[in-house]
């Protein structure tokens, strides 16, 4: 049986006949998926609020209040980060949730736990130093780990603000550099978009990736991620961005986005995203152009795709106890192993684990001394 939340996403009018018990389960599933705010948006977008019982509406209103508050906080943090980094000549690009809020795309009912910025690798040191001057600190890590993060990963360990406790992820790359389909960062930086944000009467210029790149970045993350607790929400993000992309470019939208995916080597991810959106969600935007497109075939494409379908369609659901059965666990495990295989070739993984293990053993001895 499908989770209730998935039923609503596929057929929003399903709420017209829902029982109190089903609503209760729906709110639990939405909470577990970080989607209560998004659900509220979807229901009002389809003009279905009148079918929401008042006790349920309280939960939707609460989620809206929390989302609005978070967006105010994000706008504030973004302007502070821009002001402090611009002063030393660094122009960060905001990614994911914070970027959606700044760019006002897929921001409807969207919450996020942290702020992500991207800076070029050669400005990473200067960025960290400047952030420290403004109250951001990172956890202390060993010299080996610090080097490893810079050499192979795409971000440094999270920093947080001493007073406000906001968490900041500083990226110097889009995906771990070990990843097989590495996203060419220069390409994304070239067509970054500028937005204007005002705080306390001052206007700030804030950079995000262009809309097409935000869509592809989100798809690229979703299908290289090992754990998909927020997979359902991320896929609705992509859907909302596709709607906006379509409004901007009309009948050219699919060909433009496919061409961009080709340049960034992310065709497979775009194929999967549009495929699962058309299977799982209500048709907010016509995706037939993407579906009839002849995506490049690879060896075992057919078998590979049916394996991915089996896994992803089970895992892009609320990660809630109500329906996490045996098959869900297997699908989640396959995705987890695949994600590690994609981002960590054995030639890097084995030396890394050996060294970590050695450090662990010597560290224990040192602690014993």
């Amino acid at each position: 049986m499908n989770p209730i939340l998935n039923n609503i996403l596929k057929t929003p009018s399903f709420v017209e006949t829902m029982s109190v018990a089903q609503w209760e389960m729906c709110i639990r599933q939405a909470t577990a998926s970080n989607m209560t705010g998004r659900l509220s948006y979807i229901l009002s977008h389809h003009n279905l609020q009148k079918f929401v019982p008042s006790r349920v509406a309280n939960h939707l209103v609460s989620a809206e209040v929390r989302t609005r508050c978070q967006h105010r906080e994000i706008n504030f943090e973004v302007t502070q980060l821009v002001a402090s980094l611009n002063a030393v000549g660094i122009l960060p690009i905001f990614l994911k949730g914070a970027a959606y809020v700044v760019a006002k795309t897929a921001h409807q009912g969207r919450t996020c736990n942290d702020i992500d910025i991207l800076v070029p690798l050669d400005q990473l040191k200067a960025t960290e130093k400047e952030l420290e001057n403004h109250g951001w600190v990172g956890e202390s890590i060993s010299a080996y780990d610090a080097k490893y993060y810079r050499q192979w990963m795409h971000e440094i360990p999270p920093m947080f603000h001493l007073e406000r406790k906001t968490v900041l992820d500083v990226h110097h790359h889009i995906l771990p550099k070990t990843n097989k389909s590495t996203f060419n960062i220069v390409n994304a930086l070239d067509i970054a978009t500028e937005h204007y944000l005002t705080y306390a009467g001052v206007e700030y210029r804030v950079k995000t990736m262009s809309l097409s790149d935000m869509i592809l970045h989100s798809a690229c993350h979703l299908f290289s991620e090992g754990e998909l607790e927020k997979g359902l929400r991320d896929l609705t993000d992509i859907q909302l961005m596709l709607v906006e992309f379509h409004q901007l470019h009309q009948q050219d939208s699919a060909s433009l986005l496919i061409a961009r995916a080709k340049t960034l080597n992310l065709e497979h991810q775009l194929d999967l995203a549009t495929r699962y959106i058309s299977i799982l969600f209500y048709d907010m935007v016509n995706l037939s152009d993407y579906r009839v497109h002849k995506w490049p075939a690879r060896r075992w494409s057919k078998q590979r795709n049916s394996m991915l379908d089996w896994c992803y369609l089970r895992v892009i659901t609320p990660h809630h106890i109500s329906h996490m059965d045996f098959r869900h666990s297997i699908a989640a495990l396959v995705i987890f192993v695949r994600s590690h295989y994609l981002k960590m070739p054995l030639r890097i993984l084995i030396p890394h684990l050996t060294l970590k293990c050695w450090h662990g053993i010597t560290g224990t001895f040192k602690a014993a001394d």
Partner: protein
Amino acid sequence: MLSELDFVDFHVSVDKPKGLRGFIKPQVKFKLDQTSPFKPLPVDQSCAFFEWGLNWTIAQYAMHFLIIHCAVVEKDGRAIILPGVPGAGKSTLCAALCHHGWRLLSDEQALISIANGEISPLARPICLKNESIDIIKDFCPTAQFGAIVKGTSKGDLSHVKAPKDAITLVNQTASPCLIIFPQYAPEVTSSIVTPMARGVALVELIAHCFNYTTLGQDGFKALSRTVAQSQCYGFRYNNLSEALEIFDKLHREVTNEPYPK
């Protein structure tokens, strides 16, 4: 058929761990649906843990209310809000009041509707700490107490059962009419009531709100309305009988006046 009243807002539980940890120094976990937002606590603190977890859950998720950290009691549909820092004596006063003709709305949180300013009851046991346990045992002989739990982060505590009327009328809201900031003051010879300007009370109350900032402008509007509907006082006391007389007098004065909308 289930009615809307059967809707469960939050699936919370306090569970004992399975296996060996269930026997050796057993600890309990608070769960909100499938998440455990807190570190486990010793098993004898289960009741307190359940109460704290529930309070936290409401303060996190019930954003259709402005939530003030205070005790609330009601008579004739008009409520007294008793905000106070821990130790000010709001739970003690609250327990005394609701065993002497007042209805208990909450000893911990005022849930003020953003939509209409009405206060929703949370009829739950009153949590008394340290000396106030014996004080209320003497002052309210009919009060029913749970076990005394020693050595929690807030000292020794015990829960007083919510009176029957509080539970039967749990769906009946009340409008605010008095905001009294109590302060237990052993040094005073008789209670001191100080009228408080509404502006001062409003600023003071912001510090007692759980979700004022989260609500943004709606928080300010709801709080201003609550203050505008109420007379505000500072109150220093060390005698419960005298406190009850004063509350009755203030409440009569206010309820005789026309109700400000």
